[in-house]
């Protein structure tokens, strides 16, 4: 009986390592496809780097959306929305460099303010109190 549980534990351990390995491999593969496909030319590395960093931020946003979809409790979903708001500020900041339009960072500031206030309101709602308290 003890041997059996031990075997079961070992199998579970190996399964977990395997899952970790497959997950990391797929993430590294997705990152490599984003960053090196097609192979960037050396001459205009700045615009290439910025365009691909936007793609990396989009991948981060997809992770947040996955947590919103799966989250077992409402608190998980609110945390994801909060993190998504901060990510969009970084997105706007990077977007302003290659296009040369300075007003993207203004959108980022407004979005961060709105996100902070809405997070506080949602936290109050989670706590189960009135908003004017």
């Amino acid at each position, binding site marked *: 009986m003890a041997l059996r549980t031990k075997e079961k534990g070992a199998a579970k351990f190996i399964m*977990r*390592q395997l899952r*970790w*390995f497959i997950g*990391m491999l797929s993430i590294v593969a997705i990152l490599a496809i984003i960053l090196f496909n097609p192979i960037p030319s050396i001459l205009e590395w700045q615009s290439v780097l910025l365009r691909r960093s936007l793609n990396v931020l989009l991948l981060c946003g997809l992770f947040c959306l996955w947590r919103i979809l799966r989250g077992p409790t409402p608190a998980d979903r609110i945390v994801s929305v909060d993190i998504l708001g901060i990510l969009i500020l970084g997105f706007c900041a990077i977007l302003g460099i290659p296009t040369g339009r300075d007003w993207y960072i203004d959108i980022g*500031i407004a979005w961060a303010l709105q996100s902070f206030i809405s997070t506080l309101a949602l936290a109050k709602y989670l706590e189960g109190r009135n908003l004017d308290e």
Partner: protein
Amino acid sequence: MSKSRIILFILGLLIWLGLSWPVNPQHLIVGVLVAGFVALLTGDMFIKRPYLFKHASRYLWFLYYLPIFIWECIKANIDVAYRVIHPNRPLNPGIVKVKTSLKSDTALTFLANSITLTPGTLSVDIDQEGGFLYIHWIDVKSSDVEEASKLIVERFERILRRIFE
């Protein structure tokens, strides 16, 4: 005009000038009007003890506090990255209770913010009368009040007391 209104006016004007950076007279006039209006309306709400802004030593201690804070932030990020990548997720979480001797609102806010951004800790609630903080710790080393306060709070407390108290 009380002192706290003047300080709030200066802070608001600085933020306005930052938001409309290349300074020209039009923006300056509008900024003075708006900052004066805001300072008149919400004068005594934000700054309770304006005499604290006079001491030069507080600013020097704040400059001493900044690099320590940034270094702790970077350590926290490397710690989180290690825990995320590791296959077995080396977590050992729990909520502990720590004790602090700071009293004023600003100092407690800054203490809670510093605790949240430093390695492995997240402040959950504050009990202001007793001076207790409840902290979620990702790697609990001891659940005792004294031990935990020595490990988490003490390094910030002694600087923050000189800045805000």
